[in-house]
């Protein structure tokens, strides 16, 4: 596959120089134009993969150029990222309506531009193209991670107690935490010389460091091509909204507010890393698939399990399975996250004609499970979900998986 082509349309040579410098470590082709009219010509001739488009330019401004790009059938699908110092709500809404893919507010850093472009095209470090050493191909190696992998989390926070509580919360997944009390002390962990297998998989950074150190740290991370896909999450007190907005604008993918909800934390980190969490819940038993729902299923975990189960269950069907056991033996209290997960899994099974059975302790842990399920289905939060128990036989609860499997 040829290297991605990036067109920068800006009347400022300074911007072209900065963009060119920023992309220098990557295998890309850069083309330039100095106003909207020239940008249209170059776009038609070069057919770039991404266009970086300034707003205020002589001859033809960026907004007019964007309109013409979107009106041209040959060019309309090229993603456009606007670069603008004018980030007022009205201006942003106007360009958003015109079909711009993203926008970057000036002043910007090279790392910020690389980050946004890398969401649209695959950027490979030049080193990876000329000498495909394992360390240089690290971004590709980070693909399709699952929650049972050995995950390494770098926590950059001045308070050791924060890192300790995070370490404790993720230990049940077998994930490791490395703590650095300042961005300066974290530099050795994000250096380009760090072997790929030792780079962090996720980075949590306190936004409370002075002199915008968290934002500068973000830029340092993004300057290392091997850390391109590693998510950075800001840690902040709830009221520090200015810091939070600034961090999001810089590129932090999420903000976790302190005090941290430790029960949610592993799943929130998994979400930031786009991990597949289904291996934590699904297993094979004979010709049945089993999904085991734990009592401590978090709100985030429930939502992600619900979302990821759709694909997982469809994959079962493709693989020839037709039976699913929902194991609720660890459940003693039927709370909203559990109800959501169970009902959506059952609904998915019904849609795909998969037979399902529930295993649970109806006498001790979860008395009157059918009634509890039916009642809870009326909870407002679930009202848009079709009732999975409609048109099915009376809900039986089996005491163990063997009994459930025998009942299919």
């Amino acid at each position: 596959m040829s290297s991605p082509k990036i067109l920068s349309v800006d009347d400022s040579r300074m911007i072209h120089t900065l963009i060119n410098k920023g992309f220098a470590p990557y295998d890309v082709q850069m083309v330039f134009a100095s106003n909207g009219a020239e940008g249209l010509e170059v776009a038609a001739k070069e057919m770039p993969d991404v266009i970086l488009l300034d707003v205020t330019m002589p001859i033809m401004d960026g907004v007019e150029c964007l309109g013409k790009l979107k009106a041209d059938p040959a060019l309309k699908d090229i993603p456009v990222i606007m670069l603008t110092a004018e980030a007022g709500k009205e201006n942003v809404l106007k360009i958003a309506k015109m079909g711009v893919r993203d926008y970057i507010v000036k002043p910007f850093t090279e790392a910020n531009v690389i980050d946004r472009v890398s969401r649209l095209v695959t950027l490979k470090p030049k080193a990876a193209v000329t000498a495909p050493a394992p360390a240089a191909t690290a971004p590709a190696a980070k693909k399709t991670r699952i929650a049972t992998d050995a995950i390494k989390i770098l926590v950059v926070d001045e308070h050791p107690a924060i890192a300790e509580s995070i370490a404790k919360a993720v230990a049940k997944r077998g994930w490791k935490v490395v703590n650095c009390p300042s961005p300066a002390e974290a530099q050795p962990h994000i250096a380009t010389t760090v072997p790929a297998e030792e780079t962090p998989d996720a980075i949590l950074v306190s936004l409370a460091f002075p002199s915008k150190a968290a934002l500068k740290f973000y830029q340092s991370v993004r300057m290392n091509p091997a850390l391109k896909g590693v998510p950075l999450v800001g840690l902040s007190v709830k009221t520090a909204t200015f810091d939070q907005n600034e961090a999001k604008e810089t590129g932090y993918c999420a903000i976790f507010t302190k005090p941290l909800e430790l029960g949610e934390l592993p799943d929130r980190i998994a979400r930031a890393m786009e991990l597949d969490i289904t291996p934590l819940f699904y297993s094979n038993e004979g010709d049945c698939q089993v999904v085991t729902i734990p009592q401590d299923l978090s709100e985030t975990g429930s939502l992600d399990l619900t979302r990821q189960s759709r694909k997982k269950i469809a994959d079962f069907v493709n693989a020839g399975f037709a039976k699913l056991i929902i194991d609720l033996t660890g459940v003693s209290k039927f709370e909203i996250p559990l109800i959501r997960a169970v009902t959506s899994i059952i609904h998915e099974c019904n849609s795909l004609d998969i037979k399902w059975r529930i295993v649970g302790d109806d006498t001790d842990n979860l008395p009157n499970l059918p009634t509890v399920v039916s009642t809870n289905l009326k909870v407002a939060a679930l009202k848009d979900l079709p009732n999975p128990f409609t048109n099915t036989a009376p809900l039986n609860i089996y005491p163990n998986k063997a009994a459930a499997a025998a009942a299919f």
Partner: protein
Amino acid sequence: MTSTEKPGSALFIQTINRYVPEVMQTMVGLSATPGTGIENYPQPSKLKGVTGAIGLSGKVNGIIYTAYSQRLSKHIAEKILGGSAGEQDILDVVAELTNMITGNLKSTLCDMGYNCTLSIPSVMRGDEISVSAKNATICVANDYVIEGSSDSLRVVVFATLEN
């Protein structure tokens, strides 16, 4: 949310005090420490060195100037471009930095209901650049001490707000 409060001199100074250091820190990697600010900047006034200017027109009419000494403009251009900067490079850098500061000021004003458009930046050189805006009701300025330089950056805003 659009505010009904009419922006005054203090808000203009606050806004440039927010964005000048942000632009300098992000683009140049240098801190810019604001002075106390001048709420009734006299006009006409003289600026000297390399001066960027951008006009605002709409519900706010006016002009913003950023004045650098020759030495400071060269220092900043070279810091941004990572090498020696020629005459054209310096003019280009001053124009772009003025654009970033003004664009952010414009965004603040637009979010308060004072929509306006910006002109293309122009850059002047000289020891006695006379600046004024006859009907301006907002005449503010501030000096910014740039890290590692004995010269300051002066930012001047003249503006009239529609009633």
